[in-house]
């Protein structure tokens, strides 16, 4: 076979991959960016004329009486979203690490069963899982009934429809996304290195801090990204068990594409969010590159 033909075959053979990346990943993204730079359509949709108005309204607010002022509320919404997502990520890491460590130290057969168990909640729909928490947390929910059955009803505090409930729901939803990459990272961790550290007088804490955490940093970074990104954009959990009182980034976007009929603004928020997350996302990459010299 001639090399030219081999090259043609190679290009053609990869066509489905490029089609997938281009058509399914890149094209929708470009469409969102394009929509962000259009005029708001009359009844939803967009008017295809170039405009930067959507981005301007992120920063400046023209009030109903015509006064213009700098708009801080979107910055505040972003900070709230980032804080909630950050807290979710931190809790997932604290809870998920010991679990992942335990799983990774099991014999392979048991390990795969445990990983399957971790992934099982994903078999059901997100909505169902969140509604389940409502049944657990509510006034006549499982916790309340159990406590009152024990005569300790006064101990019950209803956290449903508060930010605490959002935190709980998101932690529960995204925990597997933390555990699974941590597992695969911890699995590759050479147990002899931990033994070596213990042999060289490292306490439990030192073994964790000086050996296990640095060596599983890529897995930790991946887990944190996988939790933080969907958490910062989650709009279902805050709406359902958060009572919809805390407006997060995802809700803001959903609102614009929904009943607010302002697609360009929704797209503009999404683009800014994408850029901010992109910046945050490169941090772990940098960490990994630094560690990359090691491995």
């Amino acid at each position, binding site marked *: 076979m001639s090399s030219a033909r081999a090259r043609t075959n190679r290009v053609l053979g990869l066509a489905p991959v490029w089609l997938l990346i281009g058509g399914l990943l890149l094209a929708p993204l470009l469409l969102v960016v394009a929509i962000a730079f259009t005029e*708001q359509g009359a009844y939803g949709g967009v008017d295809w004329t170039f405009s930067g108005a959507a981005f301007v309204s992120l920063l400046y607010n023209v009030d*109903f009486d015509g006064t213009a002022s700098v708009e801080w509320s979107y910055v505040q919404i972003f900070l709230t979203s980032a804080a909630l997502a950050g807290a979710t990520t931190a809790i997932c890491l604290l809870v998920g690490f010991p679990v992942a460590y335990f799983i990774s130290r099991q014999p392979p057969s048991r390990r795969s069963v445990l990983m399957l168990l971790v992934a099982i909640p994903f078999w059901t729909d997100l909505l169902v899982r969140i509604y389940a928490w409502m049944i657990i947390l509510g006034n006549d929910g499982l916790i309340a009934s159990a406590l009152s059955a024990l005569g300790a009803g006064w101990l019950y505090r209803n956290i449903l429809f508060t930010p605490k409930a959002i935190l709980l729901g998101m932690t529960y939803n995204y925990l597997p996304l933390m555990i699974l990459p941590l597992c695969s990272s911890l699995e590759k961790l050479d147990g002899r290195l931990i033994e070596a550290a213990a042999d060289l007088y490292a306490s439990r804490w030192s073994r964790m801090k000086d050996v296990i955490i640095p060596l599983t940093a890529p897995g930790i970074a991946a887990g944190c990204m996988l939790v933080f990104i969907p958490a910062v954009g989650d709009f279902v959990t805050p709406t359902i068990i958060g009572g919809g*009182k805390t407006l997060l980034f995802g809700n803001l976007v959903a609102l614009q594409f929904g009943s*607010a009929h*302002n697609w360009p603004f929704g797209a503009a928020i999404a683009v800014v969010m994408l850029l901010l997350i992109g910046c945050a996302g490169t941090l772990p990459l940098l960490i990994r590159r630094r560690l990359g010299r090691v491995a």
Partner: protein
Amino acid sequence: MPARSSLAVAAAALLSACAAIPSAWADAGQIHVYTWADYTSPELLAKFEKETGIKTTVDTFDSNDTLLAKLQAGKSGYDIILPSQNYVSIMIEQGLLEKVDVSSMPNYKNVDEKWRKPEWDPSQSYTVPWQWGTTSIVYMADKFPQGFKSYKDLFEPADGIKGKIQLFRSQDGMLEIAEMYLDAPFCNEDGATLKKIQKLYLDLKPHVKIFDDTGMGDHLGAGETTVALWYSGNAYQARVSNLPNMKYAFPKEGVMGWFDSVAIPKGAPNLENAKKFMNFVMDPENIAIESNYAGDSNAYSASKPFLDPKVAAAEELKVPEGVPLKFARQCPPKAAKLASQVWTSVLK
């Protein structure tokens, strides 16, 4: 019909994902119906099939916006759609509906006088009345015996209901309620009024427990809330099935109505069959089947003998004399934009 429970929405999404896009070719004996989930009586469709031999296929949408977008995208392949009043006017304006001259159909005589030639279809050339209802406040009478007489009871909540209120998260109806309370017209563009509306909701927000378009019945039943906004039909069904203490309020300032119609999208593949369906719907016996199924009101007094006695007696479906019934319009772009600005600022 403003919205359905989100589980139904999820189910609808699943269904529409599974159901293939209806085929564009016209089979001799069939119609494709595009409707809300859990809304169109299967019994009604079966009766239609039996009487005419025309097969029906049903797809569902989750909002008028979805329906509108589908029609705007061009050839949808549907023969029958069920849009709400404010969207009917947009569809007529944008030339998305087939002109079928409803008033000359044999069964048109059954439509009540007061519902003929409505403001959204003044010549009655496009739509056939389907079902209508209202959106208002529901409350648990055992926990809030004084009840709701005015929207003042909502905007200046008594201590007993503070922190026990559920409002919609989408802006549909929210501005209209405040506008009725302030005795201002719908689709307001006046800055001062909008500012007042914004303040009303910002002051109310600390006492609101949930902003969500779904789950009203669950939350009321679980005691999480005492007061909520809901639709008359849902409220009736919930009271009958599991919330006997729930009451539906008709505040003196007025109550918001919604009105769904049967229409035929432009270029429907089975136009003649679709017209047969329209005429079929206007038969009192037939429309009663739908009212019994959905628990909503209809525009055909002659259907009364065929109604389920419970539906016929339902307080939720009877707007009292003296309470204005106001149907929301699709606001012009400027007003719509201001409305979304108000509502976003309330939620954030």
